[in-house]
């Protein structure tokens, strides 16, 4: 058989369940709503880096699962997160992406978050400090203590990233949530303060998981001339894809041969602390976070799903806060050469997922998307995606291979569990 007719095309692949997914998981409206409520509103999400909140009273705004969020650094230098929503009439309190409240706003006094609509003001701990004409309007029926902001769980963790959860009952710290997936880079990122030197965003017409899948699998390095010419040796193909509880993975390192690409040079002089020269580690955290350390520059992708076929990706580049001006510029050039909006690799990745989005748009005929490569859990194995969708299926109680059915553990994972149990007995 070569080409296939409609029936053959839609037939169940001759692979184990879990080695393919139904494309409706990338396009269905109801599945997307389930993801927002059962995943994105329940977990830890990194929203920015502490270097974006350098001084007391600085703030950043963002959105998690359609909820407007503001992160502020208080006078006590503690970073806190709140819903960016005024408890009075539901207006978004802060409209700017970033700034500092040391200066007053047209409706408000300095050092307060003030809703411009009716000038209700809040301090950096979320306490309401002013209700305009309170006694005249509310007499003694309502006071400031009753209308504080909605505070959100917030931690600064892993090289200074700011993590927020909408879920008061999350019950785990970020460290516990990460389940060991971050450990491989923790010494490099925690040694000294980091600083954001790059930020840009893209809104791409594809499902957020397609971007995460791309970050989770390196088989797509055939897309990148840069990665083929600077990688694709024995050490590259030996890189391990390691799964962790919670759907997280990380990818082991090797020494990149940057000089094989015309105009490119090694990055050994500016390696992050504890990182061997020109090495490259990657961490992909459930449900859509990527940390990518290539020698001298750290990249972090944060996703905001906008719809089943639309995702905003924020790309950050980070270096060491202690960098000299010259070193910082070199790091920036290293970062931009492949990861900037005009870089060699990022454009290619975004083209590819845009193409997937075009073929898997809402109401498109469902397709079987293969995640079935097995290469001893090394770099071109697709175990990273299988690991992700095991967790996704559990949380949504939907089978990724047939999302109308309830989730059952993948056979391949059952086998692995049995193998691990047998090994433990031995």
């Amino acid at each position, binding site marked *: 058989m070569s080409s296939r007719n409609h029936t053959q095309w839609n037939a169940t692949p001759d692979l184990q369940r879990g080695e393919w997914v139904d494309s409706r998981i990338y396009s269905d409206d109801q599945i997307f709503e389930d993801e927002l409520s059962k995943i994105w509103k329940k977990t830890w999400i990194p929203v920015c880096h502490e270097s974006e909140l350098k001084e007391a009273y600085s703030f950043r705004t963002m959105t998690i699962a359609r909820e407007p969020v503001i992160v502020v650094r208080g006078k006590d230098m503690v970073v806190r997160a709140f819903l960016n929503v005024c408890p009075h009439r539901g207006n978004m309190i802060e409209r700017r992406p970033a700034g500092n409240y040391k200066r007053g706003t047209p409706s408000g006094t300095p050092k307060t978050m003030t809703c411009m609509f009716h000038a209700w003001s809040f301090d950096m701990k979320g306490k309401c400090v002013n209700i305009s004409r309170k006694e005249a309007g509310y007499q003694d029926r309502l006071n400031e203590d009753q209308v504080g902001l909605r505070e959100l769980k917030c931690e600064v963790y892993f090289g200074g990233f700011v993590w927020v959860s909408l879920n008061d009952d999350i019950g785990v710290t970020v460290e516990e949530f990460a389940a060991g997936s971050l450990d491989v880079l923790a010494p490099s990122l925690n040694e000294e303060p980091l600083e954001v*030197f790059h930020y840009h965003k893209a809104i791409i017409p594809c499902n957020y998981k397609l971007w995460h899948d791309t970050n989770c699998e390196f088989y797509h390095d055939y897309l990148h001339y840069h990665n083929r010419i600077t990688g694709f040796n024995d050490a590259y193909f030996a890189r391990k894809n390691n799964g962790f509880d919670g759907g997280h993975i990380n990818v082991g390192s090797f020494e990149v041969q940057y000089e094989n690409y015309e105009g490119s040079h090694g990055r050994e002089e500016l390696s992050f602390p504890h990182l061997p020269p020109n090495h490259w580690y990657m961490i992909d955290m459930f449900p859509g976070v990527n940390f990518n350390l290539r020698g001298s520059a750290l990249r972090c992708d944060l996703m905001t799903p906008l719809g089943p076929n639309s995702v905003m990706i924020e790309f950050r580049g980070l270096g060491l806060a202690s960098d000299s001006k010259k070193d910082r510029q070199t790091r920036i050039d290293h970062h931009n050469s492949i990861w900037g909006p005009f870089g060699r690799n990022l454009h290619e990745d975004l083209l590819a997922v845009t193409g997937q989005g075009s073929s898997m748009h809402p109401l498109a005929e469902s397709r079987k998307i293969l995640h079935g490569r097995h290469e001893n859990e090394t770099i071109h194995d697709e175990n990273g995606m299988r690991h992700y969708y095991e967790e996704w299926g559990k949380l949504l109680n939907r089978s990724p291979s047939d999302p109308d059915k309830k989730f059952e553990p993948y056979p391949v994972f059952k086998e692995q569990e049995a193998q691990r149990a047998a090994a433990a007995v031995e």
Partner: protein
Amino acid sequence: MAVSHHEIKEQIRELIYNTCIHLDDYEWQKWHNNCADNFNYAIRAFSPEVQTDIKYHGGDKEYMESITNMLNKHNSDQSPLRRHCTVYRVDVAEDGKSATAISSLTVHQTQLDGVNSHVDAGTTSVFLVGRYNDTFVIDGKSIKFEDREVRLDTRRLDKGTHWPI
């Protein structure tokens, strides 16, 4: 006979506009030929999000030549970019050996293969808005770019591009 500052300004305007044509038409080598050996190129924008001036792309003449030489090795969005440029101001140094220019820039993209070509090919949209801030070196025989900063207002660049702006 010495060339007047007025004539230099006219030549610089012509150089900027001709460079737009070269870049629009992928005539990369003609662009490089208009650049001095110590040429430097950068695409930058101020990010209100992280309150920092950000360099998105750039390098010296050798680097930019390597970038364009390697284009055929890469998978790129081939949707054409068209530069609409207006030279606002040219300032020539007293000694006539250097000059600066500020130009307004809008780049339109006409879709070819970036999304679903059946549906989207032929659709034109604004790709980015910004300015060219140029510096020139004038040696009496020729005028060449010594520095080009593409200063962007647009920061949402979506898929981006492999092509210099």
